[in-house]
């Protein structure tokens, strides 16, 4: 089901960041919504994954992010391409390391 993009094939520069998921029950609806809403605030293409080299999932799709069914205590990796890619991955990693306490509206 999940969309696996091989970013290695692309020449575009990409930003990356990671953070440990600490949310009881894993990346369920509530935190997943926050990830997606925050990702959508950036023009960049943003992906999320559970390994440093992918596979990568579109971080702007709630269906795809939920379908990852990521359990708690998983390292989450973000990567992005495009104008505000750096800011996007930084904000997303921050959201995860802050345990989703900030609302996407306050972030970035």
């Amino acid at each position, binding site marked *: 089901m999940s969309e696996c993009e091989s970013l290695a094939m692309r020449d575009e520069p990409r930003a990356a960041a990671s953070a440990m998921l600490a949310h009881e029950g894993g990346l369920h*609806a509530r935190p997943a919504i926050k990830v*997606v809403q925050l990702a959508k605030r950036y023009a960049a293409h943003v992906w999320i994954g559970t390994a440093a080299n992918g596979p990568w999932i579109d971080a702007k799709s*709630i269906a795809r992010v*939920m379908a990852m069914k990521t359990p708690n205590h998983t390292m989450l990796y973000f990567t992005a391409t495009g104008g505000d890619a750096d800011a996007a991955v930084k904000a997303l990693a921050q959201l995860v390391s802050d345990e989703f306490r900030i609302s996407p509206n306050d972030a970035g």
Partner: protein
Amino acid sequence: MPDNGAICVRGTPVSPGLARGRLVFLEEASRGAERKQGSREEEAAALERAIAAARAELTTLMDRAMDSDAGMLLEFQVEMLGDPVVTAPAFEAIATGVRAERAWRDAMEIQVREYHDSDDLYFRARASDLRDMRDRVLRHLAGETPAPIVEGSIVVGSDLAPSRFLEIEWRGGGIALTQGSPNSHVAMLARSRGVPMLIELEHADLNGHSEALLDSENGVLVVSPDANAASEFESRRRVAELKRADEERFLHAPAVTASGERIQVLVNIANVKELEAIDPASCDGIGLVRTELLVGKAELHDEEKQYAAYRRILEWAQGRPVTIRTLDAGGDKPVPGYTVDGESNPFLGVRGVRLSLLHPMVLTTQLRALARAATIGPLKVMVPMVTVPRELEQVRLMLDAAVARLRNAGVECAMPELGMMVEVPAAALALDLFETDFVSVGSNDLIQYVTACSRDSAALAALQDPLQPAVMRLLHEVVKQANARRIPASLCGDMASDVRCISGLLDVGLRSLSVAPAALGRVKAAIARHRIAAGRG
């Protein structure tokens, strides 16, 4: 109770209360067959409009969903409806000539299945949210608007979608479902909004009936009640309402007796999730965190997980004191692979601190996590089942060592207060010999040991009266000893949540009680009614 024509239908109560109102039967999901199929472009436009209308409706509901749980449910649906991954397959099917309804159903089936087959209860619960969302779009496609449900209705149906729950003005109404689950979102919503609710309602033909009494205290729906039943019910409801209003009034104020003494009222909790339903301002802190559920087999050696849980609890308390009890396994709370199997008398066996001292690694892990959490707020660590001073001394040495090692390693930590639970008569009678920062009476175990009656024996319930002189004298002794040495004393057993016991507890001198969260209002109300006689306590 009722006769002429009344029907009594039994159900399982999942949200307490009494309601009386008009019966409203929920219409089943839209059949949606009447709309004429248009061109491919018209079908796509129709689906687009239906999705947009459903999103707009959900967004409006979100503003009404005051609590975050309900809001999250709706937000999830709004996000899903806005996600091309979810909607694109439907539009692709329409482009090949499939009718909008069919295309939408099929596309949603893919999403529903993703969740429905999951082993994870949480994911399975999302499947019903998706069906709810699917049906909302289908209703818009069919141009149907569900008949509005008038305020104060008794709503009967097979199941009720959470979003539908939020659309209804419940004031005085109730819910009776033939299906449903106590853990469903709608049950949680009903509890948080105080809407009485029954599930697993027996099958009965209720057609033609228009009025019902929903009695969620006795688990029964009385349809077409006679005048007697109705008036008896009405007076019960009035009493319950007055009582609830009274308790509500006390819930949000500090507890003060009729004679003016301020009493500390704290809550007992067993898991982090419970805190969502409690307003920190309605209590003076947490008097007992049971860690047996928090620290399952998987967490026994997991300092990080324990620390994360303790930290959340202290953050919730916002500077109010929090007492966390070290693992109290054994007795009636076995932890596989940790507690001793096959004891002939587990209540008198290796349990509480006795077991902790046999597993120093497990206890050290917990003490380290607690010392780290102690930097966040005033944390008290309470040791259960202490019998002799030596046991508490050993735990104190281990706590000192844990803090020293954390500091050496440069890990942020603080020394929490260390106290004991008073539940073994040997400790209660020799309290002056213990070096403890505080005491809290575990009345359930204390009573079973004083009366030599097993807690789980229903046949011996009468012998375990908490107000009998032997128990009250012992409590008085404990409080006297603690006061003489200026050691704070509290009580965290079931007695504190039992309004019949409040006067007695205040009269023996207790000024701090830790209660079940649901009992906060009534305990505070009972405290306010009691006048402590001069010279007592």
